[in-house]
């Protein structure tokens, strides 16, 4: 169910980016798409009741150097968290770039409406 909602969020973003005529709304749509993907990424790594994937003293079997067996079963998967941080930074970069282009376009054309920004055709 949460996966379906996440997919719905992605589709809302896609719809917004493709259908809307206002540049700012298109950018909001793109941002929603990126949030949906990031949310999905986090949910893939989610484990209910899980612990942080960090080994401290309580997880070492006494007398040995081995990690207790149930650590693997309770720790959440750290990879999606590393991935989502990277993805957020990339999304930040692309959003900053697209917003700056949007501002320059507004300076040139005096409008945010993409139906009026139409010098290119064919």
């Amino acid at each position, binding site marked *: 169910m949460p996966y379906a909602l996440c997919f719905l969020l992605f589709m809302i973003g896609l719809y917004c980016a493709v259908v809307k005529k206002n540049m700012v709304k298109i950018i909001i749509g793109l941002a929603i798409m990126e949030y949906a993907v990031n949310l999905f990424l986090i949910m893939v790594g989610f484990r209910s009741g899980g612990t942080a994937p960090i080994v401290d003293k309580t997880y070492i079997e006494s007398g040995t150097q081995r990690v207790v067996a149930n650590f693997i079963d309770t720790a959440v998967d750290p*990879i999606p968290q590393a991935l989502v941080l*990277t993805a957020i930074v990339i999304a930040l*970069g692309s959003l900053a770039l697209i917003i700056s282009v949007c501002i320059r376009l507004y300076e040139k054309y005096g409008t945010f409406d993409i139906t009026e920004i139409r010098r290119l055709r064919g």
Partner: protein
Amino acid sequence: MIPHQLSLIMESVFLAVGSTEKNSIGAGLPAFVAIPLVSAFVLPIFGKSGRRSAMFLANLVTLALLVLAIACIGKSGVYEVGNWTIAVGILLVLDGLSSLMLLVISVVSAAAMLFSTRYMEQYTAKSKYLSLFMLMVAGMNGLVISGDIFNMFVFLEIASLASYALVGFGCEHEELEASFKYMVLGSIGSSLILFAIVFVYGNTGFLNMAMVSQAIQRKGLNPGLSFALALFVAGFGLKAALVPFHAWLPDAHPAAPAPISAMLSGILIKTLGVYALTRVVFNVFGISLALGWLLIALGILSMVAGAFLAIGQWDFKRLLAYSSISQVGYVVLGIGLGGLILARGGNPAWASLAILGGLFHLANHAVYKALLFLTSGSVQMSTGTRQMKQMGGLAQKLPVTRAACTIASASIVGIPPFSGFWSKLILVVAAIQAHLYWIAAVIIFISLCTLIMYLKVQRYVFLGELPESLKHIQENRGTMLIAMVALACLCVLMGLLVIVPDLRANILEPAVKVLTDGLAYSANIIKP
């Protein structure tokens, strides 16, 4: 003579499938990313007063990358970044296909950089241009040598972001508009790819391509993975501008400065789109009949629609951009045809031949389309316009540009001694051998359409009456000429890549073998 040559090609392709020679290079791999990445942030330090030295250094960097890429021919290697195990770490992999792509990328970027030394004098903020250019090269190099799927996405985004900024580099109305359009569609493509990567990770638990591939071989495709594959096709299709996803390309490529158009059309769409798609489809998911047909359909749609739309254009660079869509169709068609023959269980020699045709066309197109965009830049710099209706008779004023443009046109059309002829011939032979005669007919028919559009270029740009306003123009000198002449020589000589057995066995065949081996890719990386 030709049938004899072809039989030789088949023979050696067949032989190459059986041989496993190892010539390993590992630790040098990060240099392909590190050198351009470091220089991207070092070059702006030179500032306004050191512009010349920055340009010189940038040229040295692209040439060094070219030398490195040539040194990597015929080698293979695996490098684990920071010695992490491959299940969680970043893996760099060099195999036949990667080294072919590295070679193509460095040839085109060296020529484009040489051309920009003079061409970019019309623009301000040159240090930012150099920085973005190097970032784009770093992203593309990283993409072709990365061995895990998420790292591939990161490099894809580096290259894409740099290209969005470079398309809008002129900061005029058209450039910004094209850049915005490109960025919106590009971001949608990136989101789709990331979504697919998450699906792959959720379903297999791995990001490394070899391990994902093994997991898929063990468990088979489930609906989640099939959906991921569909998302990959759409995402990489958007990056490659295959026809249902092509809307951004005809705006973005003409709007960029000419050397960047050459980079975008020549290599960016192929690295980010075609290479990534083939890698994922052939080496990770494995080719199937449906996928083979899908690639063929995308290829033919792109070929036909791109060619028809190109004929009607009057903007020089826009015509070239539509022609790129059409030519990338050939590449995808060749690779899809090879995949189809493999999936059908047909003769592997013909599958190899079809893929060889596709990859060879990729290399050829990178060179001659880059050259065409450079000549269009030279024409634009001399005349100040891109509209073909305002040109004419430039043959007497721009003799070298004209010669280069004619050679490139002859190559793209497929006139015998030039490079494009060989790749198209191989594709036609492969299609006939697969008993898909209509595909061979389409390939030849689109070649005729290509002939029409390049005759149009010759007729309206270089022949006819010289307009009064253009009487005073002069040929561009210096590095622009060197870059154009070098690429024109390559256009003539590229045919040797298939004719000379040694070159073929070292450059093209290892690349073909990576794709025909398909899922065996994973076994080369994960040693049991």
